[in-house]
Structures are given as C-alpha cells and as structure tokens.
C-alpha cells in the first residue's frame, strides 16, 4: 500500500500507454529474477485464507479452492455473498472490520478499493508484473491504475458479441452478419418484414445500459474517453449517429417494447425459440441459448457486433487482495490469487480451464486461447478463434470504467439513455447529458 502512494507521484506525468507497454516488457524480462529472489509459496504453507466470492457456480469455486488447498497445505474459508447485494455486503464487512483476504470484486470498484486501502497494490509480488505482461495489451489497464499500481487479477473476461440466427439472416438475403450499426438496422428491418416482429434483443435495462453505450460507441468508431479518463465522446460527430441509430432501433420496433425491462433469460428464450434474430450480449450467452434447447437453438451462431467494422467492449470482473494482508499470509494469498486469476504453480491456466468448461468464460491472456486443455474444454459450438480475435484485435476495455468516480456516471447512464430511447430526448441532448453526468461524477468521486 505504501508503494502505491510513492508511485503515484513518480508516474503521474507518464503516458498511460507507454507505462503499460514498459511494464509489459519489464515484467517479461525481470519476472524470473524477482520471483526466484522473493518469497515463494512454500514459505506460506499452513495459512488460512478468508476468501469471499459471489455465488456463481459455487461448486466449481469450492473444487478450485479444494484443489489449491490440497496442493499448498493452506486452508481457505469461503464466504459466499449473492451477486445481488455483493457490493453492499463486501463494503459492510470492510467497514465493520472483518475484511476478506482475497475477494471477488466488480472491476469498477477495484481502483476505489485500493485507494481506500481496502485492497492491496500487487506491485512487487512475485510474478505480478509477468501476469500483467502476458495479458492482451487491450486488457492491461483494467488491472493497472494510472499510477502503475496493480490493483487486481482477472476473475474472468468476456467480449460483447452478436448471437444471431443463421437461417433468418440468410432468408433475408444477407450473406453475412452486419458490418456496421446501419447494416444492423437494415438487416433487422428486412427480417422484420419477413415476419419476425422484434428481430433484435439486448439487455437494455437501466442498470446495464451503460455497457451498451460503450458497445455501440466502439462499434461506431467512437473513442469514449481520453487517456486521462475525460469524456470525449460528446465532441465526436459519430456519437450522434450512434445515438440516432440506437433511438431508431427502439422507436422503429426492431426490439420489443419491453426490451427496457426484459432480463437476459427472456432474451435467451426469445432467440432460442426463433422470436428474435439478433441478441447482443457477452459471448458466453451463446451457451445459455444452445443449452436452453429451444426450437431455433441449433441455428444460432456468434459474430462480432459489427463484423469487420468497429470494435466492441471487453468486460470482466476481478479478484483483489485485502489491504491488511501481510507476512506469510500475503504470500499464501498471492499464490492463491495467481492460481485463480493467472496460472498455477505448474504454469497452467488450471482455473480458467475449469471456467471455460463450466461457463465458457475467458481469460485476458493470449496463452489461454492456445492452451490445448482450454480448447478441449470450451463448448464446441463456440468459435474460440473468433472470440480470441475479438479480444486481440477488435475490443477495448474503456479504461475509464475502472476509475473511482465511474460508478457515479454508471448510475446516471440508465435514465439518460432510456430518455433517448423513449423519445423524451434527442441525440444531441443525450450526448450532452451523458457528458455532464461524467463531469458530475468525476467532481464528486469517493466512497
């Protein structure tokens, strides 16, 4: 934690991209030396780690923990908190003086937790630099703050993809999925004319629509924020085109009217039963669509949000180490984190192999996609090379999304976007309102 404070002043004027690149190079060259000279996991045997996770596949989590405990001789007490209410639960435990040693966190909270000293800066821990260096360059800034602090390790990563009905697209006379937002509208219109009442579904509820703002801005070729985290989307004329497109999709009935409140389960049912042709959401939702075994499940494939066009949003959540963990426990906690969010002691992505098999979740490492065990474990109906290409070449994490003030903007986004979709606002006013929401959140940052 002290190193975080020191580093802040030294690196404040360094360009973020240069810093991350330099870290990557430095990490790859120095990591073996550092890791051999610093504490090893063997020093940390016999420790008890308190691990807090949200309740996604609890049995998988237990088996991962059991496997690590068996290999290292350390004990792990797992505490599950439901995903709904996780932030409140974990913050209450932090404030109440019973923090976890290692815990899941939402990426948007990660820097805030380090600033608050609820989570540790991982710089200097053996292999931390190497972990960052091995990531896709596009993913690094989710885990590294502007001052160089390594705030977290990956829990999982995903990219927004377009799940689509091959037969419907072909029947409408298209040889490929849309390569731009405008083409998305055009294909939807044709498919609608062919009898599909609401061809496009997406999880546009208030709490989640902020992700789509970035999905569509990136698809439209807009860079939402500059390297300092200041909003610049409102000055880009393409932003207005994106917002016009978005409003038209809803107003012209390309989506169901209930799309502003529908949940992913309903969308999954909709596309799996042939009631929709396109479903934009994280790549792993294809698994739900196929496994739900609807009448059209077998016809659903995956494509980039705008094909050969712009980029898409890369998202993911993280694991962090408690800010008060020290000594041998810190070594054990870090070893656990490395196994969970990077590689195990044998250098394998053993945790991610398991997540790939059980949830089609990805890791932000190129090596993950080349791992034969991952390839074997990943659902066969998913195009892993397409997903890898999207991670590598066609996605952006929008680094501002992890900044401490960002949640304030996120909370405002839903109302502003829904106003646009419902026709209560126009694209220009929406862009301005979003920019104001950013600036307001930024000026009032803090817990």
């Amino acid at each position, binding site marked *: 934690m002290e190193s975080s404070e020191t580093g802040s002043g030294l690196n404040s004027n360094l360009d973020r991209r240069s810093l991350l690149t330099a870290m990557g190079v430095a990490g790859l060259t120095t990591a073996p030396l550092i890791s051999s000279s610093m504490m090893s996991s063997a020093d940390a045997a016999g420790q008890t780690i308190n691990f807090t996770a949200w309740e996604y596949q609890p049995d998988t989590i237990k088996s991962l923990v059991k496997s690590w405990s068996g290999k290292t001789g350390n004990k792990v007490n797992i505490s599950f908190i439901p995903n709904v209410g996780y932030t409140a*639960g974990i913050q209450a435990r932090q404030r109440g003086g019973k923090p976890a040693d290692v815990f899941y966190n939402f990426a948007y909270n990660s820097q805030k937790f380090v600033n608050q000293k609820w989570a540790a800066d991982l710089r200097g821990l053996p292999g931390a630099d190497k972990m960052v260096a091995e990531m896709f360059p596009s993913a690094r800034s989710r885990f590294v703050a502007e001052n160089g602090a390594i705030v977290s390790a990956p829990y999982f990563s995903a990219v927004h993809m377009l799940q689509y009905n091959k037969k419907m697209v072909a029947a409408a006379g298209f040889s490929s999925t849309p390569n731009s937002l405008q083409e998305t509208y055009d294909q939807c219109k044709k498919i609608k004319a062919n009898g599909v009442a609401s061809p496009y579904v997406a999880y546009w509820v208030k709490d989640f629509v902020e992700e789509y703002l970035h999905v569509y801005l990136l698809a439209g070729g807009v860079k939402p924020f500059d390297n300092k985290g200041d909003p610049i989307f409102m000055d880009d004329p393409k932003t207005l085109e994106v917002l016009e497109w978005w409003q038209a999709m809803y107003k012209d009935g390309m989506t169901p009217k209930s799309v502003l409140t529908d949940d992913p389960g309903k969308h999954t049912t909709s596309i799996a039963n042939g009631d929709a042709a396109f479903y934009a959401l994280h790549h792993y939702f294809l698994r739900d669509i196929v*496994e739900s075994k609807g009448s059209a499940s077998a016809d659903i494939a995956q494509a980039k949000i705008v094909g050969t066009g712009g980029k898409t949003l890369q998202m993911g959540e993280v694991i962090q180490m408690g800010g008060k963990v020290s000594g041998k426990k810190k070594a054990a906690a870090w070893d656990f984190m490395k196994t969970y969010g990077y590689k195990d002691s044998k250098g394998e992505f053993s945790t991610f192999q398991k997540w790939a098999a*059980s949830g089609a979740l990805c890791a932000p490492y190129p090596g993950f996609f080349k791992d034969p065990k991952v390839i074997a474990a990943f659902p*066969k*109906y998913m195009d892993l090379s397409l997903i890898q290409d999207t991670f590598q070449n066609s996605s952006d994490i929008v680094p501002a999304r992890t900044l401490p003030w960002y949640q304030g903007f996120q909370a405002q986004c839903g109302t502003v976007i829904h106003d646009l979709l419902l026709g209560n606002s126009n694209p220009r006013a929406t862009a301005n309102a979003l920019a104001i929401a950013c600036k307001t959140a930024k000026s009032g940052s803090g817990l």
Partner: protein
Amino acid sequence: MKTVRRRRPLSRARIVRTSMIYSVAACFVLWILFPIWYTISSSFTEPSKIGVRPTPFWPANPTLDNYKIVLGIPIRDKDCTPGVDIGNCQTAASNVSVNKIVDTMLNSFYVASTVVVITLIISTIAAYSLSRYRFVGSNFFLNFTILSRIVPGLVLVAPIFIFLRVLDLLNTPWALIISYTSFTLPLAIIILKNYFDQISVDLEEAAALDGAGRILTLRLIILPVAVPGLIAAGVLVFLESWSEFFFALVLTDSYTVPPLLAGFLSMQTFNWTLLSAATVIAIIPPVLLTMIFQKYIVTALASGTGK
C-alpha cells in the same frame, strides 16, 4: 306462526354499487395473486419456455425438474450428448447453490422461532407495563418505540456488525436472532400494547381482590385472554424474520432463505425457473402459518379500531 321474510328488491343503485365493490375486489385479488400464480407456473416450466409469448396460463409440458434440481435430486436429460452440446450434461456445474434450500429453511425456521419466543417474552412485559402503568417517560418510550421502526436497517447494519464482530457472533444464528429481535420488538410491543388496552381492568382488579400479584395476574388472567394478540404478534414477527434479506446478507454467509434465493440471480444469468421452484418451497411454511392463524391475526390487528 311461521313468518315468511320477503327479500327486499334490489334497487338499481344498489346493484351498481355492489357490482363496483366486487369488481374492485376482484381486481385487487388478481393483482395480489398474479405474481404468485406466475411464480408457481414458472416453477413447472422448462427454462426454454419461460417468457414465451403468448404467456400460457399453465405450461404445456409441466416439469418437476426445477424442483428436483433445487432439492439436489439428479435429473435425467435424455437430449443431452455429453461433451458436445451442453458440456457435461447432468454433471455440469450448476450456476447456483442447489441442495441447500432445505438446510436454509431449517436455519430460517430456527432463527425465526427463536426470535418469536424472545420477542414475545420481552414485548409482553413491556406492552403490559405501557398499557397499565403511567410512569415518567412512558409516553416518550412508546413514541420512541414507534419511531425506531422508521430508522432504515441500512443505517443500523454497520454498528450491529461491529458489535457482533466483537462478540464473535458473525455468521452464526445468534447474529440474526439478536439483530432481528432489535427491530421486531417495537412491532410486537405496539401490537400487544394495543391489545392489552382492550382487556378490561376489572379482571385484574378481581384477581387482585383474590390476592394475586401483578405477575400472577399477568400469567393466569391476562395472558390467556391475550392469546389472539400474542399469536398475531408472533406470526408477524415470524414472517418478518423469515423474509429479512439485508442483515442476513451482511451478517452471515447466506444462512437463511432470502440470500439463498437472491443467489439465483447471478452474473446476468437469471435462473427464473429454479428461483421460482425454490421460492414456492420457501413460502410453504409462512403460508401455512398465516392460514392456520389467520383469524387471530385479523382479530388482533383490528383490535382498537372500534374505540
């Protein structure tokens, strides 16, 4: 002599008024029952059929699989091709906690029952005192009791968390029993004080003439008369303890039913059918309890309205 009572002919105005009352009542009943019907219907629906349009009144092919999964009973999936279409089929990891519903229901029952017992003992004495004695600050105490219901639990959770951490009671049933009692007590005191106010003082005066002291009078004379009020307060306290979410979320690791149910909504993966099945199972005890003691609840809550 047998008298024949002739029914008064219904006036047009009366017919209209009665129809309107019944229409409003019917709408209200539908409004109340719709979520319950939807939950029950969803619990028998295959995941791929949830949310289909038009919404069927009852699933065409009802299934018990959701209940089996929630209860941890293995299901046979005849369409599954292991390793090809749905990963590991029956052995595939569940997204949510299964096979925990019965355990957490037992935990909820233990917590709620203990809270009821503790709350009723303390609140009976407190409510009787407030009803029968005028002491310095009695009005303030009563008003403060009512006001304490207004304070949001969110504000109280942090100090309660620290208190329980110091006592090393976090993640134990006592963490919930202690915290729930703190906010069920005011509710029970208000209900019971109101009920005791309705009981004639003459009974106690007669007991006093026979030589009974206050405690004996309370035990032998007042409590038997106040049984409906005690039952009503007990049921309401039980329901409040059974359904409480936030304290259970923060103070324990999904020890009781509500956080377990919340765990069915995870990472944008909404397991509606499993959630519905778990909800149906989880509401059985409170529904039974309410049905059994319904008349006492209505009587006790209505007491004092005719003052």
